[in-house]
């Protein structure tokens, strides 16, 4: 981990410390892993009311110019040209070898595309995208903007009061609006499995917005620890853990992020591998895992066939506060990937019995 004095600050660094946040290094930024309430309470509060996360470390950018959508399709198998104004979509950046370079969100704002990429990958992603752009299409990173995620079942009521324009959005809808007089760009999405919004705001207004949201009934701050346990319960991938340049979209069970049109044209980086794996089946698959009992199995735990040899590895694992049980995801050989298959997770050299389980572990509650 980087030394504290080399870490970057988000526009909310001062607020995190004022709230008692325990700061840790993450993707080069000083970020709160938790506040005094603790990961368990923050997680459960998000599922029962609303949690506010600072995700300003993530990379925001806009893509402008004639043919921007077609240009972006040069580096992703997502259907960008078919994305309607006011809608957002999940996509993958893929490598020529068929690995996953990053995952990202893209929104069609009518006159431009708006992108959000992972903090740990933004320094690689933006040059990759830029290199694919024709004359007249420009990528502009937006380091002067902060990003807040407000997640949980209490968010809908809060939006009714504070931002009617956002209250009307359905899952993956995007709109520009004002919250308490502060201009924002918000999408009805998130990384918890709950209804909620991700709110892009000018850095110099971010703390005022965060304080306004924290004043609303039911809203509590939550850190990266709860963000991780919430996304794992929701069955969502973390780049660098569950997907990376060695995993293909098919292995990662993210085939749905490949546009139908793209799957007919095969005109994206890594199409040959994806096409072959869709035809023949991938060697391994990303699956959900439910260990017996209460003991968690962490990332890099070897997975063995019941009474057999190695068949894969855990890529994310922990304890699900809402599930009230341990949970994991990882890759296993295709023959072992059926729901219900018994396996052994080799935790500290001892076999922990587990079963392949469907994800999400906790049902999504998006606003449809």
């Amino acid at each position, binding site marked *: 981990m980087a030394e504290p004095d080399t870490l970057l600050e988000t526009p909310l660094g001062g607020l995190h410390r004022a709230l008692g946040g325990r700061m840790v290094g993450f993707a080069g930024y000083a970020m709160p*892993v*938790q506040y005094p309430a*603790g*990961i*368990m309470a923050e*997680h459960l509060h998000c599922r029962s009311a609303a949690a506010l996360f600072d995700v300003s470390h993530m990379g925001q950018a806009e893509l402008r110019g004639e043919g921007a959508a077609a240009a972006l399709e040069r580096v992703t198998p997502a259907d960008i040209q078919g994305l309607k104004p006011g809608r957002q979509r999940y996509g993958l950046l893929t490598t020529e070898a068929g690995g996953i370079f990053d995952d990202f969100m893209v929104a069609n704002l009518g006159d431009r595309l708006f992108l959000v990429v992972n903090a740990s990958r933004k320094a690689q992603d933006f040059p990759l995208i830029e290199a694919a752009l024709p004359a007249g299409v420009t990528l502009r990173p937006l380091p002067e903007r902060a990003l807040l995620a407000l997640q949980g079942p209490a968010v809908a009521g809060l939006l009714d009061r504070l931002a009617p324009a956002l209250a009307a959005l359905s899952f993956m809808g995007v709109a520009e609006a004002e919250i308490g007089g502060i201009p924002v760009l918000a999408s009805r999405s998130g990384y918890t499995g709950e209804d909620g919004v991700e709110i892009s705001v000018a850095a110099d207004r971010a703390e005022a917005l965060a304080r306004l949201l924290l004043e609303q009934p039911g809203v509590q701050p939550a850190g990266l*620890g709860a963000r*991780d*346990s919430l996304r794992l319960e929701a069955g969502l991938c973390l780049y660098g853990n569950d997907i990376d340049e060695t995993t293909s979209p098919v292995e990662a069970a993210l085939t749905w992020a490949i546009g139908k049109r793209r799957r007919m044209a095969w005109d994206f980086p890594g199409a040959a591998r994806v096409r072959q794996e869709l035809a023949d089946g991938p060697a391994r698959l990303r699956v959900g895992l439910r260990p017996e009992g*209460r*003991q*968690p199995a*962490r990332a890099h735990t070897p997975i063995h066939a019941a009474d057999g040899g190695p068949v894969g590895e855990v890529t994310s694992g*922990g*304890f699900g*506060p809402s599930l009230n049980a*341990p949970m994991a995801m990882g890759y296993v050989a295709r023959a072992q990937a059926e729901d219900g298959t018994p396996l052994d997770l080799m935790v*500290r050299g001892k076999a922990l019995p587990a079963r392949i389980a469907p994800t999400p572990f906790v049902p999504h509650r998006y606003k449809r």
Partner: protein
Amino acid sequence: MSELKFTKDHEWVRQDGDAAVIGITDHAQNALGDVVFVELPEVGREVAAGEACAVVESVKAASDVYAPIAGRVVEVNAALAEDPALINQDPAGQGWFFKIEPKDPAEIAALLDEAAYARFVESEA
């Protein structure tokens, strides 16, 4: 009840008759966060001083717990299997981990006292 002694790995030790009771400090439980599972040593196991012999799992991560002194494990806290949150609620009491019959009781006396442990925690911050 005798005074608590401490290690730089954030365990505490309290002499209880012929046995030494061992747990993790309030500082350690606070750093770990909500404990969801503990793996305790087998009763009868011989352990060396500094040997990893228990594991404490929080929502976020797994951490080893070390034997502060050499000896034989004579009892483990079975209540932790049902209620690992006892470690957060009462780390120096109901949240104890295991008891060791010391090979050499003088090893306990050589551990950090409360003031020395407090200085150590301060120096790590």
